[in-house]
């Protein structure tokens, strides 16, 4: 009984791009270490190790994690609740009742925009839940549907 819907398969590419961009930081650090070791008396193995780490980090962030991440990513928006399932090794399944939803945001950064995707952020009074990488139209529809369904029925908060 998993939640029904999968996020866009393009999410893998988005995560690859963002993973790559993120790993540039590691390369930057490694490059910095080379410069420093040329200027100061620093053991040569330090930049070497940093380069190996950066390479490993890039491989993991670009080739390993994205496909693992999408494997368990499921969501389902039902009449009364939203269910989100995600995780790599620990699978986390979160239930958010519709009536607890405070507001819904759609977000589109430059990478998501390039792939015509958009992410939906669902906020309750205490928590925020993100459904990343949905087709732009799908995200808008979902957004509308949730705000329509999530009419608070009591004055709890």
């Amino acid at each position, binding site marked *: 009984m998993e939640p029904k819907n999968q996020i866009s398969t393009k999410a893998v590419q988005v995560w690859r791009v963002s993973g790559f961009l993120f790993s540039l930081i590691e390369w930057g650090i490694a490059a910095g270490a080379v410069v420093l070791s040329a200027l100061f008396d620093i053991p040569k193995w330090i930049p070497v190790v940093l380069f190996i780490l950066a390479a490993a980090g890039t491989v993991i962030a670009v080739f390993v994690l994205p496909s693992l991440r999408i494997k368990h990513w499921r969501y389902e928006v039902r009449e009364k609740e939203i269910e989100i399932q995600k995780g790599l090794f620990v*699978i986390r399944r979160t239930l958010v009742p519709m009536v607890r939803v405070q507001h819904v945001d759609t977000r589109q950064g430059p990478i998501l925009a390039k792939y015509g995707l958009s992410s939906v952020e669902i906020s309750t009074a*205490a928590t925020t839940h993100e459904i990343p990488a949905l087709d732009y139209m799908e995200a808008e529809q979902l957004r509308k549907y949730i705000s329509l369904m999530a009419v608070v029925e009591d004055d709890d908060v």
Partner: protein
Amino acid sequence: MFKSRRLHPVASITHTLKVLRGIVLPYLIVFVFGENRPDGIASQLLFGLGALCLSFIIGIIRWRSFSYSVQDGEFLIEHSFLIRKKRYIRLNNIHSLDITQGIIQRLFNLVSLKIETAGGNKSKEPEVMLEAITRQEAEEIASLLSKTEQETTGSSDEESREDPVHTLRFRELFIFAGSSGRVGIVFSGAAAVLLQFQEVVPYKQIFRGLESFAAAGLVNIILLLAAALILAYAAATIHIVCKFAHSTVRKKNEDLILTSGLFEKRQLTIPLKKIQAVKISENLLRQPFGYVTVYLYYAGGAAAGKGNARVMLLPLIKAHQAPALLRAFLPGYSVEELRNGLPSRSLHRYALRQLCFSVPLSAGLIYLFSPWGLASLVFIIISTFWAYRGYRDAAWQIKDDCLSLRFRAVSRHTYIIRRSKIQALRIDSSFFQQKRELNSITATVISGTGPARAKVMDLDENDAWTIKKWFAP
């Protein structure tokens, strides 16, 4: 209801000022006091002018890219500065509207409007800030809001029965103060104060005197330390006695009124419907004597002050007295024995979690320091015991619309949460848990500054399923 609107153009000025405020310090550091600062007044002025123009342009872009509207009972703000962002807030979720008038707004006869929703203060920014709008516009929004409010809130009933009251007893006040473990705070506080006066107080001379004193023997040093410790302990105890003396809870209609303090009286009124969860905590010192502390989590909102999100309802009470009192103060909360524990197959997971730290630590110490390292075996004994207690203490119970979750960190905590206050329920299962059909369950509630989470590890999968079904049928 109205179509998309921009703020008043004056908003671009307030935006500009905001940007300027952000860059003024870095600017001063780099261009005025920096080592590579440009030479001569003229070029410095030029840079300053450039920064000013840049912030003004940013201010205008921010103003141009921001719009808001109210449609279908929803407040919508859109801004598309670098990232396109839309935020929707349903009108009946809006907690407070705050209309203020700063100097700039006053010059143009405008106001700024702050909109806040409950728990919306993850960052310090309000949910929505409309920097410059006309007074009519602000009133229009306020009237839209009060219309929805009238639809949702029912009539308030004015019945007044005999108010339940509970006051912390004198004896318990001292036990509470004595067992609060705040000696450390007094010690570090005292150290900080003493260091402040380093310039004034002739410590060197005092210590020289002490040296000869110490030379007289080890006994003296120990005596001195003991005296300091007792002094700090007494100071901490007195401080807490003053703070919690006359701690009283009174239920009046639909409010709980908490008062306490010997010299400085504090009073706090919590409407019952703002209460998000009840937590019963037993720390290591008090548990053997059967004493517990009862906390309340409540949604204070930004207006009520952020620090007040968790408050002690009953600082100290005998565990067996707590249920009856809580029933009197908190109707609708069921305080019962938690009957559902964990399956025996989760014991080894509790053990593993503790032992994976203590065994390597112990092994390392034994290897490094030959005979004395053996003493570190005590870590393994403690962690085994701790793991067993963690396993024994974990429990859950569902009664009507209340979920109780109990778990041990160092102290033992029992959360009692009504279904309508659980913001999200999470069920985790790691690879190893799946094999043994175990799940962890986390319930999240509002607690003002951030979410509060009650988590029970390694429940039977069927139990987790039961809780899930109860939560979302």
